[in-house]
């Protein structure tokens, strides 16, 4: 028994050690320590003089979570005794402490000898290494590291032990569910439909007042989030509802943006069309693009669409970047001075003066967003939406039920592409510029992530996904270069905790005629 615990806990120790080493090598540890220090002391931390306490805290926390994880693994079948837990915790802390100390001994001796590690590890400036050495010499630093790892794992052990003894987490979970039952929001909605309407109205009003109170930075972030939400809603129709995987969604976004650009910019054609008309045309052009892509594959099953759209996106991106089309698309320089809509005089009447351009444009995005949102809801619960869902669940049976699957497939792609086109047009108009570099593959990946993270086929999930994928990285700005690392880690954690997405689809409650319930009661009688 002890032997298996020893080998398993030393494995966990090695994992903790590797995490510590990795975080130190990319200098994430000190950044985290800095943020913690800022959090606790109120933003006075100096960049290169992190208090050793916070450094230890970060190291301790990493070991803490590893130990908790170790203790929880066997929790379900057989509990560790306190002695076994203690033994494991000590092993974990010693192994991880050993590994991280080793790295710091090496780095410390480099520092003492006056060599610059930055040749190999870009992030590790001498100041940073000093911070990692707890601003003292190597021997003391090693002691501190062991202290932090041991304290971390002991804290985990004690916390776990207390929770085991008092059954604290189970109790709190039970309390939560109890609370949920007590409130029964859903039930209240069912009984008083007006409550739901009023709440939704209040939410919309709050949403509409938002642009007036937030600062310029938040306005720009919110604009991007909403544009991605529009894209997500469109892609959700294709991927979430009709169950076809589209990888190159950015192609339709680009089609919309460029169509809009060409129609409203003074160069190269000088059409300078009305905003709304141009928006409509870009929507239609993107829809036609979707139709052309969907046509050859409508009778195929499987992942062909993913590959075809991926290729299509690359073709579009390369074409708009190429010399061949440079006369029309401006090549790598893109299209400049794209038109923006004129602010209607209503705003001036109400507010006394015209709104600032960015505020007004945010309203415009919100307006388009609400229309798309409404359309998405209507589509999902329509006959078309139902047949998409049936197709996603089982194509053969859907066909056997009389759904002409090939045309419904193309329809999903066309509508989804048109929505992306509208989003693209908004995006181009917002930036008054569009260039090929904005339509990289990453945009498709982000749009897909919006749908998947939120919960495939779920409209509220898609909105949440847009806030997480495009909003969260902005909130994580403090982490500077590491925000993408942290963001990736968060995504992984989210998908582990909620594999169906954060807000998965819940089948709509069906309204049942009262007489049907009576019959049911009859049926259920013994």
């Amino acid at each position, binding site marked *: 028994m002890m032997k298996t615990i020893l080998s398993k806990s030393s494995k966990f120790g090695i994992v903790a050690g590797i995490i510590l080493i990795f975080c130190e090598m990319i200098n994430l540890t000190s950044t985290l320590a800095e943020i913690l220090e800022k959090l606790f002391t109120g933003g006075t931390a100096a960049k290169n003089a992190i208090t050793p306490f916070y450094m230890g805290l970060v190291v301790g926390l990493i070991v803490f979570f590893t130990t908790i994880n170790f203790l929880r693994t066997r929790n379900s079948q057989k509990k560790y005794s306190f002695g076994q837990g203690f033994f494991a915790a000590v092993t974990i802390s010693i192994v991880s402490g050993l590994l991280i100390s080793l790295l710091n001994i090496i780095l410390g001796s480099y520092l003492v000898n006056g060599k610059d590690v930055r040749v190999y590890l870009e992030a590790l400036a001498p100041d940073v290494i000093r911070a990692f050495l707890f601003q003292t010499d190597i021997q003391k630093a090693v002691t501190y590291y062991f202290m932090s790892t041991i304290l971390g794992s002991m804290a985990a052990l004690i916390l776990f032990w207390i929770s085991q003894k008092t059954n604290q987490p189970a109790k709190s979970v039970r309390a939560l569910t109890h609370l949920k039952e007590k409130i029964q929001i859903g039930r209240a909605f069912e009984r008083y439909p007006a409550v739901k309407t009023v709440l939704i109205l209040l939410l919309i009003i709050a949403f509409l007042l938002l642009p007036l109170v937030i600062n310029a930075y938040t306005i720009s972030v919110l604009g991007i989030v909403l544009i991605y939400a529009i894209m997500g809603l469109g892609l959700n129709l294709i991927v979430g509802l009709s169950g076809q995987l589209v990888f190159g969604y950015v192609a339709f976004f680009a089609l919309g943006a460029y169509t809009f650009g060409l129609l409203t910019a003074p160069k190269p054609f000088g059409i300078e069309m009305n905003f709304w008309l141009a928006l409509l045309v870009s929507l239609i052009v993107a829809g036609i693009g979707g139709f052309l892509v969907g046509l050859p594959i409508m009778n195929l099953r499987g992942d062909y669409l993913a590959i075809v759209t991926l290729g299509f996106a690359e073709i579009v991106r390369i074409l708009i970047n190429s010399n061949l089309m440079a006369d029309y698309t401006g090549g790598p320089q893109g299209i400049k001075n794209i038109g923006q809509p004129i602010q209607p005089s209503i705003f001036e009447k109400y507010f006394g003066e015209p709104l600032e351009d960015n505020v007004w444009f945010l309203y415009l995005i919100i307006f388009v967003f609400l229309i798309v949102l409404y359309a998405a809801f209507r589509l999902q619960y329509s006959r078309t939406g139902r047949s998409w869902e049936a197709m996603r669940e089982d194509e053969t049976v859907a066909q056997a039920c*009389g759904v002409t699957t090939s045309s419904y497939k193309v329809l999903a792609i066309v509508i989804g592409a048109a929505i992306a086109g509208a989003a693209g047009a908004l995006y181009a108009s917002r930036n008054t510029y569009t260039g090929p570099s904005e339509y990289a593959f990453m945009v498709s990946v982000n749009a897909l992530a919006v749908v998947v993270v939120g919960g495939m086929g779920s409209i509220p999930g898609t909105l949440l996904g847009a806030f997480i994928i495009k909003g969260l990285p902005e909130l994580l700005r403090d982490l500077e270069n590491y925000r993408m690392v942290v963001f990736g880690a968060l995504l992984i954690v989210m998908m582990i905790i909620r594999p169906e997405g954060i807000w998965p689809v819940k*089948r709509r409650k069906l309204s049942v005629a009262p007489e049907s319930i009576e019959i049911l009661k009859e049926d259920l009688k013994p």
Partner: protein
Amino acid sequence: MYFEIKDLQVYYRAIHALKGISLTVNKGEIVALIGGNGAGKSSTLNSISGLVQGQSGVITYKDEVITGLPTDMIVKKGIIQVPEGRHIFPKLTVQENLEMGAFLNDNKAQVEEDMEHVYQLFPRMRERRTQPGGTLSGGEQQMLAIGRGLMGHPDLMLLDEPSMGLAPILVEQIFDIIFDINQTGTSILLVEQNAQMALAIADRGYVLETGEIVVSGTGQELLNDPKVQAAYLGGESEQEKLQKGDYYF
């Protein structure tokens, strides 16, 4: 003639799945099509309902050629297939599954009436109507699949192995239900591996082997046919068959 297949041939690339089969179904009959794995039973049904297009042959229904029509047209004409392996929509609720069965029916009142009819036939479905189809047990899923077929007002119902993977008591229940459906005037073409049960309720039957019909007759005749008994009903022991040397393939 109510329903007739003449010399139907189906290829999947190089595989000759159906080598020219001919069969008929009269109005109000239950016709069983039995055969082992890979005999071409499902291919026959799929080509009737248009899911698979045959290379040659003519299918007529109510004196009208339906060969090559798209599936939704065939469904509209009242030929409804219940696919094999309890294919249901796992994430849609039971009620939504049933509603999909009436996809081509625009008459809402009619759909509700049909739903009520299905619920009467399968009280269990009413009980579970808000539950996702995937959470039902095997037998319930088969009932749901049949119920969904009924929602389309079948005139001729194509049942693909309704007993597959079910416990004997459930198999009996399902066959009772099939018999009841037939009593209300729906003609049934039943594909089965469970020859005993299928032939017991069938008016007539066909035995299909490697893409060809080898024996046909009334249900009773086939049940008494020694060759059919040997191959599908376990009439003789393996030893006896080997000794007699008339292994039926």
